C-alpha cells in the first residue's frame, strides 16, 4: 500500500502554494509571510502552524504537507530568513526522532490521511515521536524481534485476516484508507527508547506472522503512547542518568488505521527509517574545532602545566583526524547536494564514534587529578541528548554508546563490506526458516 508521495492537488487558483523558482523568490515568500505573521506578537504554536500551512516548514516536502516541492538545498535560505526575524523555533533537538526518522517514513510509506494527520503536529513540536524497534532479545538482529501484534477483526467481521476483503468498515476520521480494518493487540518489550516518556507516538515494529521467515513477518505501526497497556520506565545508563526508556506493551491496542505500509512489509519500511537515522547522525556542518575536539584543544591551550610529550602526540593525531573527519562530512554533504548520494555516511558514523571515544578518553587523562572526579551520579532525566555536555568524565562514558547506538560499529563494518565492497555475507541459518522455529 505504498501511496503516491508526489505533490498534491492544492486546488485551482491557489497560487500561494506554487513553488518559487529561485532562492530569491523563496526569500521574498518568507518576507511576505513574516509581514503577515508577526513573530513577536503571535503565540509561537500559532506561528509554527501558519508557517507549516504556508509550505515554509520543510520546502522539499510536497505542497499541503508543509513544503513546496523544492530541492532540499533551498531550505537553508528559509531557515536563515526566519532566524534573522527571531521567529519561534520548533525545538528540533526535542523532536529529532520525529523530524529525522518518523517524518521521512510517513512521507514515503504513509497514506494520504496519515500524512495529513501526523506531519503537521510532528513538525510544530506538538507531538513528540519515539522509536520502538530494539528489544532485549533483538539488538543487532533487529529482524528477529519478538513483540507480537495480533489482529483483532471488527466484531461483525468474521474474516480473521480481513485486510484485503471488501465490505469492511469505511475508515473513520483518522482511518488509513479503505483497506484498513479492525485493530491490533500488541504485547512485548522495547528498549533503548529515547523520549518515550515525552512521546505521543512511537514508530513500532512488531511481529504479525511468526510462521514465516523473520524478515517477512513484520509490520510497521504508529503506536499511540497514551493508550492503556503502554508502560514507560526509565532505563538508567552508565552515565548515571536515564536518557532512554524501556517500554512494556501489554495488550496495547493499535487501530489498523495506524498501520504504516502493508502487513508483512514492516522490514522494508524500517530499512527506510534506519537509513534516515544514519543520514541524520552523519549530518550537521561544524566549524573547525566545532565537535568534541574543541574542548580538548581549549583545555590544552589553557593548561600548559598539564602538557606531556605523549599527550601532545595524541592530541595532534586526534586534532588531525577530527579535522579530516569534518572535511569528509563536508564532502558527503556536497555529494548529497549534487544528487550523488554515496555510502560515505556509514564511514562518517564509524569515525564519529571512534573519535568521540578517543578524544573524551584523552580529555579525562589530560585532566589528571581532576579526571578522578565526576560531576553527579544521581538519576536525571535529560530533556535532550547531549554528547558534548557537562564534564570530560560524562563525555567519556556517554561516548561508549556512540559505537553501539544507531547500529553497532561491527554491524556497520558488515554493511560496508557487503553493500559497498560487494563481499559475500557470512553463511546464514536464519533467513529461510520460520521465525518461530529459530533457536533463541
Amino acid at each position: 500500500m505504498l501511496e503516491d508521495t508526489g505533490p498534491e492537488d492544492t486546488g485551482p487558483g491557489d497560487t500561494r502554494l506554487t513553488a518559487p523558482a529561485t532562492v530569491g523568490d523563496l526569500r521574498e515568500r518568507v518576507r511576505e509571510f513574516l509581514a503577515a505573521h508577526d513573530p513577536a506578537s503571535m503565540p509561537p504554536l500559532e506561528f509554527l502552524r501558519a508557517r507549516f500551512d504556508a509550505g515554509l516548514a520543510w520546502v522539499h516536502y510536497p505542497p499541503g504537507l508543509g513544503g513546496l516541492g523544492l530541492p532540499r538545498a533551498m531550505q537553508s535560505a528559509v531557515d536563515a530568513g526566519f532566524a534573522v526575524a527571531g521567529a519561534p523555533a520548533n525545538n528540533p533537538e526535542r523532536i529529532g526522532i520525529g523530524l529525522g526518522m518518523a517524518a521521512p517514513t510517513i512521507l514515503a510509506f504513509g497514506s494520504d490521511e496519515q500524512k495529513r494527520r501526523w506531519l503537521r503536529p510532528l513538525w510544530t513540536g506538538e507531538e513528540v515521536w519515539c522509536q520502538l524497534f530494539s528489544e532485549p532479545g533483538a539488538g543487532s538482529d533487529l529482524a528477529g524481534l519478538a513483540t507480537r501484534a495480533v489482529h483483532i477483526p471488527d466484531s461483525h467481521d468474521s474474516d480473521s485476516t480481513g485486510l484485503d476483503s471488501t465490505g469492511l468498515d469505511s475508515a473513520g476520521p483518522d482511518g488509513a484508507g479503505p483497506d484498513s480494518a479492525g485493530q491490533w493487540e500488541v504485547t512485548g518489550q522495547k528498549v533503548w527508547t529515547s523520549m518515550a516518556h515525552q512521546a505521543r507516538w512511537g514508530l513500532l515494529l512488531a511481529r504479525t506472522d511468526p510462521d514465516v521467515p523473520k524478515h517477512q513477518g513484520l509490520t510497521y505501526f504508529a503506536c499511540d503512547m497514551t493508550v492503556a497497556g503502554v508502560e514507560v520506565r526509565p532505563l538508567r545508563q552508565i552515565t548515571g542518568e536515564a536518557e532512554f526508556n524501556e517500554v512494556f506493551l501489554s495488550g496495547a491496542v493499535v487501530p489498523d488505521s495506524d498501520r504504516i505500509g502493508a502487513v508483512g512489509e514492516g522490514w522494508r519500511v524500517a530499512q527506510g527509517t534506519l537509513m534516515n537515522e544514519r543520514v541524520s547522525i552523519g549530518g550537521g556542518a561544524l566549524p573547525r574545532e566545532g565537535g568534541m575536539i574543541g574542548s580538548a584543544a581549549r583545555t590544552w591551550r589553557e593548561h600548559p602545566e598539564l602538557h606531556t610529550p605523549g599527550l601532545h602526540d595524541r592530541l595532534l593525531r586526534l586534532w588531525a583526524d577530527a579535522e579530516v573527519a569534518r572535511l569528509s562530512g563536508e564532502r558527503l554533504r556536497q555529494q548529497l547536494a549534487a544528487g550523488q548520494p554515496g555510502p560515505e555516511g556509514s564511514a562518517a558514523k564509524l569515525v564519529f564514534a571512534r573519535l568521540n571515544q578517543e578524544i573524551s578518553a584523552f580529555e579525562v587523562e589530560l585532566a589528571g587529578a581532576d579526571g578522578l572526579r565526576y560531576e553527579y551520579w544521581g538519576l536525571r532525566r535529560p530533556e535532550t541528548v547531549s554528547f558534548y555536555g557537562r564534564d570530560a568524565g560524562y563525555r567519556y562514558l556517554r561516548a561508549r554508546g556512540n559505537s553501539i547506538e544507531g547500529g553497532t560499529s561491527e554491524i556497520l563494518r558488515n554493511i560496508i563490506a557487503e553493500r559497498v565492497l560487494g563481499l559475500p555475507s557470512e553463511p546464514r541459518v536464519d533467513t529461510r526458516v520460520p521465525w518461530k522455529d529459530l533457536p533463541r
Partner: protein
Amino acid sequence: MSQGASRDMPSLLYSEAEDDLRAAVRSLLDDRGGWPSVLARTETDEPYDTGLWRALAADVGCAGLLIPEDQGGAGASYREAAVVAEEVGRAVAPVPYLGSAVVATAALLEAADTTLLENLAAGTATVALAVPFAAGPPAAWPSVDGALSGVRVVAPHRADPAGQARLTGTVASVADALPAGVLLVPADGVPAGLYAVDRAAPGLTVAPVVSLDMTRQLADLRLDDVPARCVVSGEAAVRAVQAALLAGAAMLAAEQLGSAQRCLDMTVSYLKERHQFARQVGSFQALKHRLADVWVAITQARAAARYAAACLASGDPDTPVAVALAKASCSEAALLAAQECVQLHGGIGFTWEHPAHLFLKRAKSSSIGFGTPDWHRAALGELAGLKAAGGPR
C-alpha cells in the same frame, strides 16, 4: 586556528573534466603494460619508463597542466594535477610526474622562469628539484644545518661568462633526478638561490641509489665546481622552494590516495575469488571488517586530499593546514591499504611475482617523502596553536 572555518568550503568533488582527464590517463597507463612491466623494469638499468613519460607528458599533456596557456601549458590547476597524481599512484608508474610536472614546475612558476617552463610544457625538458625526498615543508633553507641543501656557491673561474656561477656539494636521496635533463639546485652562499644545472655539465655526478621504492629510484648528487645559472635568489628563492615542497607534499598525498584505492580494489577482488574452508574467504567477518576499515580510511583521506588540492588551486591561506592534513592522512591510508593487501592475500602476497610489494614499498617510501605523517602533525601543532609547553617532564 579559525582559518578555514568561517569561509565557504571549496568543492571537494571531482568535476566532469577531471573525470575525463582521469579516464585518459588511466587508459594510457593500462595500455602500457600495467604492473607487470613496472615490476620487470625494477631490475633493469632503466627503472624509469621514459617512453611512458613522454606519452604522458607530451601526448596527454600532463607535463604542462600547471603552466599557463601563454607559456604553452594547459592552464589547469592543482585539482586536475591531483587527479593525474592519483592515477600515477594507482599504477605505481615509474615516471617523474611528481618531480618534474609538480615539484620543479611549482618552483619555476613561483620564480617565473619562462624559458624552462615553456620547455617543460612542450615536454622537451624534464626537471628535478635537488632536495632530499624526505624534506617536508616548510623548507628548512637557507641553511639550517645543511638539512635541505649541502651545496654552496663557490668562486667562478676567470674564463666563465658573466652570470655563470659554480656550485660544489652533495644532495642525497633526490627523487626523479635520474631521468631529469635539468636540476634545480638550492645553494647556500652568495647569492643563496635556486640554480639551474644542466645534466651534462662537467663535474656533476648523478648516482643511482638502491631504493626501498624501485618504482621511484632515488639518486645521490655530487657537484664538483659545476657551472650553473642562477634562476632566482634571496627571499624569492626561498618562496620558490617553499611552494615546491608544499605542492609536492599535496600531490604525493594524491598519489597515495590512488595507490590506496588500488590496493583495496585488488584485495576485494582476490577475497571474492579465493576459497578456503569451502567458502569465499571474503565471507569471513574477520577479513571483511579489516577491509571496511581500509575503505573508511580512504573516504577520509579522499576528503583531505581534495581539500588540499582545492586550497593550492585557489591560493587559499589555509593551504599549509590543508596540505599537512592531506599528507598525514593519505600516507597512513596508503600504508594501511598496502599492508592489508599483503596480509589478506596470504602467501601469494609475500611473493616477488605479485604486485602487492610494489605498492607496499611505494607506500612506505612515499610516507617519508616530503615529510612523514608525524612531521606534518607537528606542523599542524604550530599552525593550530597547539604547541607543547617546555621540554619533557
